[in-house]
């Protein structure tokens, strides 16, 4: 299961597993985001290439409008996947 929870203005929380089975529903949820976004990933347990692709589509869409899309509090295993993918710097992952 994956959920995109709105927190405050410009803040969302990613919860659960962002895999290929959840990617379609997640895409619709992310498509509703606008403006600069800080995404809290402290409860994101898992991500695969399908999930990364959802986040990159979101990054590109917001970036083209001049908005920042960054991920915060990323768990170590999830962080590794972003580092291996070469996408960590784009998404503000240190």
């Amino acid at each position, binding site marked *: 299961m994956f959920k995109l929870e709105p927190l405050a203005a410009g803040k969302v929380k990613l919860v659960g597993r962002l895999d290929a*089975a959840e990617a379609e529903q997640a895409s619709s949820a992310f498509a509703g985001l606008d403006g600069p976004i800080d995404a809290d990933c402290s409860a994101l347990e*898992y991500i*695969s290439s399908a999930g990364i692709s959802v986040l*990159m589509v979101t990054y590109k869409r917001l970036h083209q409008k001049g908005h920042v899309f960054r991920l915060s509090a990323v768990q170590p295993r999830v962080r590794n*996947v972003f580092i*291996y*993918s070469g996408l960590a710097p784009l998404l503000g992952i240190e």
Partner: protein
Amino acid sequence: MLVRRFPRAVASLPALVAFVREFFTAQGLDSERVFDVDLVIEELFTNMVRHARGGGDAIELALDHDAGLLTVRLRDEDVDPWDPSSAPPPDFDKPTHQRRAGGLGIFLVHKLSRDVRFEHADRTTTVTARLEVAR
């Protein structure tokens, strides 16, 4: 070795995840390592679902463990020859928005595995990946 067949559909992923948990518990493996195993299986399985031509209703997944080395084996029967390792890896020199989609999954499989082997014989594709999962 634990072997099970799963419907050829991305919707099988939660069942694959449950199967891996069952194996980890039975073998007393460190659950810290389950992330990489899930990722390798998801990428290989979804590649088969999406790209293999032909194929029956189900794909077989076998898990085995010996001395800290976990073997993942996926078998897809009655399919045309197919080798996802022939897909070019992501081109990290290109700006992200110019990179082609796809290829990333298999790249991650190689990154997380000690070794990966693709074979095709008698219309069956077998992919075997070995990962280190020390107890």
